[in-house]
């Protein structure tokens, strides 16, 4: 499947195999598939909790092909992106990657994603949602070209402490010198393999991008190289656990993308998602600047916080109360028992000004033991640091784990 000219036969299937499908199938003991946009995706290959540990203990491999990808080129690519994005894109030098959000004129987040500065003036933007209409709407007055190339690039996230060693063994010479948020190219079986030191797990990890025709050989060589270093295919359930521990937010889960919002008040600004560090007021005009300046002055409506919750029960879909249990402070957006932090952790959206670091709340948790439901009000406090942030994430070259 390629981006343009979908054949008129596309309707015969609602969902398509990813370029890695034949290999995913070999690993998928559970034979369960879910959908991620146009593609079949694996929720868990053999056991989500075990797969999680491959990501934290050795190396987990996750297919990121379905991620929406856009290519931005042309003389005005940088000023254009600076207009579109809240952060200062000029700080993302060629060969570097930056996380960013983009807003509508009301300063509400449309989506978040990563900007890959592939080559001087050539950018790739990866996001959860389709964006071409919005990106093109913003082209006015800029000499840029934008194409969506989601289906023309296959991608794998290779995450975990042994990931660098495995890539080295696969023949990616010098990969150990790649610093966090750096990207580089390799010649691979006669095609170009792009590798970035990025990921959604908050750990040492890389993302690999390649022509879909080379997807299978990439997978094969990767798994051959990783055999002795604990490489495992990893499904979306494990990835979700990894990203919550790393404090990463997910569109459609921790915030509502503004373009889809039937109820505009349910959307969030970058400040309300704890992403104020991504807003650069001194770079000139950008979408949402005025509204965000006003918000900065008047204060935000919400705070997205990290909660450390007493006890051992995951606080899924919970309400968060002000101490005393009478007044609702907000709701949990993502929650889990964290095996690495050994704590019940959650991301929660609280009504500002509630949610300052150290502030204490009570979380209402419903849980079940052998079909019997119970409810507990668990004390919780707002923490500043992410739950999982190992030094190896930043170390260059990474240790040979």
């Amino acid at each position, binding site marked *: 499947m390629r981006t343009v000219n979908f054949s008129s036969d596309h309707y015969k299937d609602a969902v398509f195999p990813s370029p890695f499908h034949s290999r995913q199938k070999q690993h998928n003991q559970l034979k369960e598939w879910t959908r991620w946009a146009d593609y079949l995706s694996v929720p868990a290959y053999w056991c989500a909790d075990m797969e999680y540990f491959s990501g934290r203990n050795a190396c987990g491999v996750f297919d990121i092909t379905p991620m929406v990808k856009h290519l931005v080129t042309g003389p005005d690519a940088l000023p254009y992106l600076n207009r579109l994005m809240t952060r200062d894109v000029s700080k993302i030098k060629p060969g570097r990657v930056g996380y960013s959000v983009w807003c509508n004129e009301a300063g509400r987040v449309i989506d978040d994603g990563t900007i890959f500065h592939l080559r001087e003036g050539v950018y790739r933007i990866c996001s959860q949602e*389709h964006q071409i*209409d919005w990106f093109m709407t913003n082209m006015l007055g800029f000499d840029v070209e934008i194409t969506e190339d989601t289906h023309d690039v296959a991608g794998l996230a290779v995450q975990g402490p042994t990931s660098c060693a495995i890539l080295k063994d696969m023949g990616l010479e010098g990969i150990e010198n790649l610093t966090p948020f750096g990207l580089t190219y390799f010649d691979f079986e006669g095609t170009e393999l792009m590798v970035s030191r990025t990921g959604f797990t908050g750990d040492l990890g890389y993302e690999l991008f390649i022509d879909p025709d080379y997807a299978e050989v990439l997978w094969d060589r990767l798994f051959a190289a990783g055999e002795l270093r604990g490489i495992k295919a990893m499904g979306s359930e494990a990835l979700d656990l990894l990203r919550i521990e790393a404090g990463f937010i997910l569109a459609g889960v921790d915030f509502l993308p503004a373009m889809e919002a039937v109820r*505009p008040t349910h959307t969030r600004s970058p400040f309300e998602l704890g992403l104020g560090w991504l807003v650069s007021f001194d770079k000139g005009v950008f979408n949402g600047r005025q509204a965000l300046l006003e918000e900065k002055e008047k204060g935000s409506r919400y705070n997205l916080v990290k909660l450390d919750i007493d006890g051992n029960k995951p606080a899924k879909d919970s309400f968060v109360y002000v101490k005393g249990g009478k007044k609702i402070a907000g709701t949990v957006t993502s929650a889990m028992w964290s095996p690495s932090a050994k704590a019940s952790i959650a991301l929660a959206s609280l009504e500002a000004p509630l949610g300052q670091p150290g502030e204490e709340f009570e979380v209402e948790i419903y849980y079940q033991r052998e079909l019997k439901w119970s409810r507990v009000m668990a004390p919780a406090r707002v923490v500043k640091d992410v739950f999982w942030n190992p030094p190896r994430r930043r170390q260059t070259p990474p240790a040979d784990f």
Partner: protein
Amino acid sequence: MTKKYDAIVIGAGHNGLTNGAYLAKAGLNTLMVEKNEHIGGATTSLPRYKDDWIYSNCSYVCSLLRPEVYRSLNLAKYGLQVVPYGGAVTIAENGDYIGSYVDPDKARREVARHSHRDADATARFDRDIMRQCRFIRQFLLRTPPDPTSFKPRDLLEMMYMGKEALKLGEDLIYDTMRFYTMSISDFLDEYFENPLVKASHSGSGIIGSALGVMSPGTAYILLHHAMGDVDGSMGAWGFARGGMGAISKAMYDCFTDYGGETLTGNGVDQIIVKNGRAVGVALENGDEHYADVIVSNMTLPRTFLECMDPKDLDPGFLKKVKNFKIRGSSGKINIALDGVPKFTALPENSELARGDMHLIDSTERLERAYDDWKDGIWSQDPYIDMLIPSLTDPTMTPPGKHFMSLFVQYVPPRIKGKDWTDQQVQQFADTVINQIEEYAPGFKDLILHMEVRTPRELENEVGLTEGNIFQGELTLDQLLFNRPIPGYAQYRGPVKGMYMCGSSTAPGGGVMSAPGANAAREILGDLNKTNTVPEGWLDD
């Protein structure tokens, strides 16, 4: 001595039936008077070809029917079942088509096949439509406020409307004004670039309207078609199992169970007014029936210009009634088919054929169809909303045979100012059939029987003035507190004891039951009776 009733409802259309059911539920001794032998008005399933072959003679799909009414009148218990159908397809003359699939990713890819950008824009378009619909829906089961009144109730209602609008942000208020005043064609231009994509959305802006896609006001009509739902899935449409008559039948059974009485086959000739108060009805056969409350389910002009003595009414009021825009623009052809027609453009057994099918390429082509209507003839290249309900509903035809429903824009109430002749009615049908034959060769050979209805038939048989399917044009000047006419939006007529409950009243046409329910609430309030009409379900 004839029996005196608490209430008489004139017309057993679905709104009359809804109204009667709530009145009877409240314990009123209620009589329903219907001119036809059958009930249902524009909501019927009558066999016209063979006994085991039913058509949805007028209305053919269901979405607007208020779920609160469905539930509180126990329509499920009375056998009503609404089955959603998926999808739609617009087929272009060059053999290309654009399908609207139920599956979201399929749907997006299909638009992307025509324009990558429009595929994304569809999400934005749907969102904006949904925002407006959410806003309107909460007012459907509320009586419009009178903006000139200082009665606490009107002031409170105005404030409520304002508050609800503000809740949704200032953008929505701007958007709302635009929705109510723009043309569907301009509106679509703001979102899409591909002509076929635009064409695929444009039809719902002109269904039942005597306006063209380029006429201001048509954007709202699209909303009117999108604000319904099937089981909470907003914008979805479904078939009433057994045809649309299943809806009126369930309402009728409910009405009867609550003790309501019905007289069919005799229309009301005159509403009897004594001392400035409506007191009864005189039927065509001379019978008279009396009641404290007289409710008209008929169109506004039919009620006041045909069934009332002008001397009982204020001339200023009558003038407003005469000015009410109720121009016919639609025709309906019901066909018994020997099999499923094959559309050259569509893949074999395409799921798209189960939904609405349209044969149109561009908004311009649709506008030209309108030009013919202005010229006083039916569109030579008409816009057809085509469905084969029997692909979904097994109860309508024998197995393997089919019922095809063709809703046609534009069809004028008169041809060049003169009444339709039978020959012209046949010619109109030929125009439509020939168009379909071009897209589906062999189609004609499948036709076993046809029921052809131009505005002439719609007026004569159903009582829809000029054949306007909504009992009055759905434009801003005739909506909200201006429907049907300023000062009379709260379902009360100009003489005491008289009420209106048809689609001419707010919130307007479609098989919705809201006018009938709202009118019942007003009547029961005036009589100090317990209200039996449910409140709208709020969605927060």
